[in-house]
C-alpha cells in the first residue's frame, strides 16, 4: 500500500512535469506557427505614447517612421510613399500591408522594463523596426516605368524568394490615406488601393507557355513539329497567332521563341487536359503561396473533362486561367532556381531600438515544381526568346568591373562592357476590359540567375512593350546592387 501511494505520487509528478514541459514548448517553439493568425486580436492593438517602429528599405533608408508632434503624439511619415504604398501600407482605417501584418512586431517593446523605466525620465519608448528586402533604387526605376499607367512590377531573388522590388500603379500617398479615404475607395476604375502585384489577377497570355512547355518536357512531347499558317481551327473556333502572322515550320524551340499560338494549341491537344492540370497543380496554382501580405491565389480552373477549345486556349495562356504578377515572378524564379519554388518574403529582419537584429527571415522552400532537368531545358527555351525571338531588346550589358562577380553567363563584347545572357518570355493577354495586357517575365544572368522580374502593364498592347522596364531593373541590379 505504501509503495503504491509513492508510485502514484510519482505518476502525478511526471504528469504535471509533462504539463510544464508541454507549456514551455508551446510557448517557446510552437507559438510561431499560430500567433500570427488573423483571429488573434492581440496583434492589432497599439498603445498611445509609444513610438511605432520604423520601416527601412534594404539599404537602411527610412520608408516610414513616427515623428513626434508638438502636442506629444506621434505622426506616421512616409518617404517615397507612392513607390511603397501597397507593400508598406498605412496605419489608419484598419491598417494595410506591412503596417498591418507586422503590427505586432512594430509595437512590441524589446527590453520592456528598461524602456519603460527610461520612459519615466522622458525617453522615447520605441517598438521594433523592420528592414524590408525592397531596394529603393529598384523601386524608383519601377515607379518611373509604371508612371501614368496601370500595372505592376515584381523582382525576386530566385534562390531565396526575397522580393527585391514590388510596385503597383496607380498608387496613392500613404501620408494622406485618412484624408483621401472616400476618394481612394470610390475610384473603381483605377482601384488605387489594390496591390496589383499580389492581388491583381490577369490572364497570363503567352507567359503561360512556360507551364505548357514544362508539361511537354516532363511528358516527353518536345519532338512535335508543326507548320504554322497563322491560324488553325480547333473544335468550333479558329485560333490565331499574334497579328495572324504565319510562322512557317516550327519546332519546340522556335515556337516558344516566336510565341506561336497554334503550335502550343496543337501541343495542348496532344498533351490533353489531365497532363496540363497535373503540371499546373505541381506549379502551385490554386494554392497558398505563404506571403505575409494580402494576396490572391492564382487560379487554374480547367477540369479533366474540358472540351478541346478550352484545352487549346488554356495551353497558350487564355482560357480561364488567372495569375498575379507575383506568381509569374515565382514561376520564373523557379525556372531560374532549378525548379525549386521559394516562399516570397518582404521583411528581412527586425531591429530593436538598440540596433540588434531579431527575427531574421530564413528562406523557405515552397516546393520542387519541376525537375531540375526540365528547368534547365526551359531556361534554354527562354534564352532563345531573348536571343532570337520576341524579346530581343531585353538584352543588356554591364560594365567590365562586374565581370568578376558575374563570371559565368557573361561574354566579353567589344568595348568595356559585358553582355549578360537574359532568359525571358513575353505575353500578350487578351482580356474583356479593352486592349491587351502586356506581360514580360525574365531572369538574368541565365547561367547563374540573380534576379527574376515579372512585369505586367494593363492594356499596353503587345508583350514586348513590357520589356524595357524588366531590362532596366535587371541591369540596375546587376550593375549596381548585386554583390
Amino acid at each position, binding site marked *: 500500500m505504501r509503495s503504491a501511494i509513492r508510485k502514484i505520487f510519482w505518476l*502525478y509528478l511526471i504528469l504535471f512535469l509533462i*504539463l510544464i514541459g508541454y507549456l514551455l514548448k508551446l510557448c517557446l517553439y510552437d507559438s510561431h506557427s499560430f500567433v500570427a493568425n488573423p*483571429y488573434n486580436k492581440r496583434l492589432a492593438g497599439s498603445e498611445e505614447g509609444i513610438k511605432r517602429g520604423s520601416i527601412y528599405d534594404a539599404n537602411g533608408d527610412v520608408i516610414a517612421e513616427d515623428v513626434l508632434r508638438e502636442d506629444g503624439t506621434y505622426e506616421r511619415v512616409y518617404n517615397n510613399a507612392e513607390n511603397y504604398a501597397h507593400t508598406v501600407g498605412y496605419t489608419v482605417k484598419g491598417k494595410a500591408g506591412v503596417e498591418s501584418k507586422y503590427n505586432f512586431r512594430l509595437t512590441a517593446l524589446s527590453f520592456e522594463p528598461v524602456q519603460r523605466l527610461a520612459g519615466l525620465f522622458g525617453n522615447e519608448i520605441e517598438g521594433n523596426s523592420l528592414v524590408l528586402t525592397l531596394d529603393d533604387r529598384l523601386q524608383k526605376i519601377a515607379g518611373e516605368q509604371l508612371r501614368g499607367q496601370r500595372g505592376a512590377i515584381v523582382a525576386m531573388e530566385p534562390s531565396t524568394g526575397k522580393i527585391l522590388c514590388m510596385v503597383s500603379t496607380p498608387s496613392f500617398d500613404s501620408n494622406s490615406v485618412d484624408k483621401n479615404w472616400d476618394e481612394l475607395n470610390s475610384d473603381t476604375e483605377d482601384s488605387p488601393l489594390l496591390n496589383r502585384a499580389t492581388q491583381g489577377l490577369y490572364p497570363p497570355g503567352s507567359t503561360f507557355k512556360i507551364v505548357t512547355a514544362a508539361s511537354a518536357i516532363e511528358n516527353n512531347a518536345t519532338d512535335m513539329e508543326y507548320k504554322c499558317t497563322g491560324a488553325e481551327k480547333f473544335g468550333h473556333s479558329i485560333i490565331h497567332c499574334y497579328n495572324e502572322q504565319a510562322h512557317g515550320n516550327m519546332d519546340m524551340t522556335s515556337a516558344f521563341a516566336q510565341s506561336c499560338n497554334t503550335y502550343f494549341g496543337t501541343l495542348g491537344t496532344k498533351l490533353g487536359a489531365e497532363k496540363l492540370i497535373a503540371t499546373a497543380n505541381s506549379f502551385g496554382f490554386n494554392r497558398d503561396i505563404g506571403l505575409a501580405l494580402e494576396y490572391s491565389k492564382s487560379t487554374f480552373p480547367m477540369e479533366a473533362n474540358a472540351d478541346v477549345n478550352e484545352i487549346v486556349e488554356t495551353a497558350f495562356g487564355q482560357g480561364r486561367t488567372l495569375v498575379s504578377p507575383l506568381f509569374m515572378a515565382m514561376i520564373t524564379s523557379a525556372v531560374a532556381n532549378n525548379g525549386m519554388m521559394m516562399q516570397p518574403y518582404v521583411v528581412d529582419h527586425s531591429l530593436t531600438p538598440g540596433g540588434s537584429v531579431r527575427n531574421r527571415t530564413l528562406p523557405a522552400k515552397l516546393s520542387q515544381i519541376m525537375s531540375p532537368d526540365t528547368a534547365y531545358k526551359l531556361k534554354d527555351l527562354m534564352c532563345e526568346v531573348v536571343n532570337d525571338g520576341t524579346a530581343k531588346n531585353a538584352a543588356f550589358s554591364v560594365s567590365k568591373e562586374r565581370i568578376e562577380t558575374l563570371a559565368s553567363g557573361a561574354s566579353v563584347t567589344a568595348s568595356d562592357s559585358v553582355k549578360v545572357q537574359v532568359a525571358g518570355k513575353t505575353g500578350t493577354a487578351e482580356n474583356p476590359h479593352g486592349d491587351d495586357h502586356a506581360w514580360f517575365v525574365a531572369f538574368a544572368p541565365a547561367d547563374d540567375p540573380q534576379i527574376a522580374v515579372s512585369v505586367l502593364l494593363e492594356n499596353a498592347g503587345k508583350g514586348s512593350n513590357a520589356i524595357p522596364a524588366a531590362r532596366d531593373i535587371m541591369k540596375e541590379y546587376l550593375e549596381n546592387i548585386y554583390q
Partner: protein
Amino acid sequence: MTDVYIIFAKYFFMLYIAIFVFNGFMINLARQDMAGFNVAAGLSGQRICIALFHITASVILISNAIEYDIQPVVLFCIIGFIVTVGGNMLTMAIYPDGSHLLYNCVFFLMDIGLMVLYRLDTALAGKQLIWNTLGILMMLVLPKILEVTPRLDKFKKIYITAAFVLLGTTLIFGKSEGGARNWINIGPIGFQPSELIKVFFVFYLASCFAEKPTLKKLIVPAVLSAAVVLCLVAQTDLGSALIFYMTFLIMVFTATGNYLYFLLGIAAICLASMAAYGLFPHIRTRVEAWQNPWLDVHDKGYQIAQSLFAICTWGITGIGFTRGYANSIPVVERDFIFAAICEEFGVIFAAGLILVFVLIFLEGARGALENRNRFLTLLCTGFTALFAFQAFLIIGGVIKMIPLTGVTLPFVSYGGTSIVISYIIIAAMQWIIMRNEAYSHDKPIEEVDTRKRHAQTRRAAAPERSASRKAEQNTRKNTAEQRPSRREKANVQRPSRHKTAQSSAADSRGRRRK
C-alpha cells in the same frame, strides 16, 4: 507610471511563486532529513509571499481604477487580504498540528484566483470572495466535527445511496450549462451535484476497501462505480466522468497494489474513448477541435485557439497583470482561467502554479503514507486523486495537450459548489493528517494481513528501526535548538510510541475494537 509598475510587478509575481515553490520543496526535503532547512521559517516565508502577492496585485487593480470608482476595488482588496491572510492565521491558531504547507498552497491558489477574477469580471470576483469565505469557514469547522464523528468507514451504503440520489436528481431536474447537464437550481443559487458526489464517492470506495479487497469483493464497488461514471456520461459531464474513473483506478491500485487492475482499467478507458469517439458526434467535434483548431478557427476551434493566443502571444513572461486580452476567451473565468494567468502573469508563473498543485499532491501522499489506518489512507489517496486529475484535465485541455473537458481548476476558477467542495476536501485531508497522531497506536497497515505476511512485516520494520534511531539522534540535537512547532515535536516522538504499539499489538487492538 502604472505601466512601469505593472511591467516590474510581473517579475515580482514570478519571484513570489518561485520562493513559495522552493520553500515548499525544501520543507519536504527537510522532513525527510535530506536537506537542512528551517521548516517554520519556510512556512512563514510562504505566508509572506502570499501577502506580498496580494498587495502587489492590489496596487495594480487600485491604480487602474484610480480615475473612476476606486471604492469597490479598495474594499475588495482589503476584504480579500483579510480573508486570505486572516484565514491562514486562523488555521495556525486552530489547527497547529495540521499541514500548514497544504493550507498555504490553498490560500495562495485562492488569492491568485481572486485577483485574476477581479480583473476579468468584478461582479464574479465579489461572489467568489463570498464562496471562498464560506469554504474557508467550512475548512475551519469541519475537522472539529469529523473528530467527534463515529467510525466513518461503516456507512458505505449511505454514501453510495446519497451519490445515486444526487445523480438521479441531476438527471431529472438538471439544467444544462456549457454543454453539460449537471446543474440544479435551488432558488437563485445554482448547485453542481457532481461536486458533492465526489466526496461521497471517495468515502464509499475508501470504506469498501478498508479491508484489503479480494477480487470478489471488488466486483460490487466496480459495478456501482461504473454506474456512477455512466450516469455522468449520460449528463455529458465527461470531465467529471473521467475524474471519477481515474480516482476509482487509483484507489483500487492503492488498495490492492495490483498493476494488472490499473493497466486493465487504462486499457478499458482507451477502448471506451475510442467507442465514444465513434458513437457521439459532440465528442468527435471536441477531438477534432483539439487535433487542429486552426481548420475551423472561427467556430469549433475558436475557444482553444483564443486560449493558445493568450498563452503564447506575449512570450514566457506575459504581458503584465490587467494588460492582456483574456476576455476574448469564452468562459475564461471558469474553464480557461489558466490561459488568463499565462497571458498576464507569464508562462513561468503558470509553471510555478502547476508546481503549487504538485505540492498539494505531495502533502496528500504524505498524509496517506503517515497514516496507520487503511480507511483514512485510502480516503486521503482518493481526495488527492480527485484534485490531481481535475487539475490535469483542465490545464492539459487549456494548453491543447489533451482534448478539452470542461472542469474547473480547483481553488482558482470561478464556481460556487466546486470552491466549497474543494475546501471540504481539504478539511478532510487536514483531519486525516491530524488524525495520524491519534491513529498511530493502531495496527500498522502492513500488519492488516494474516500471518502469511508476518515475515515481510518484520523486514519492513527494519528500515523503520533505523529511522527511529535517526529520530532519536534528532531529538538529542533538537534539545539544543528550538523546536519549530508542535507538529515537528510529535513527529519525533512517534517512533517510540510506535514501538510500544508493536510490542503490545494485541492489547491495543483490543482497546480499539471496543
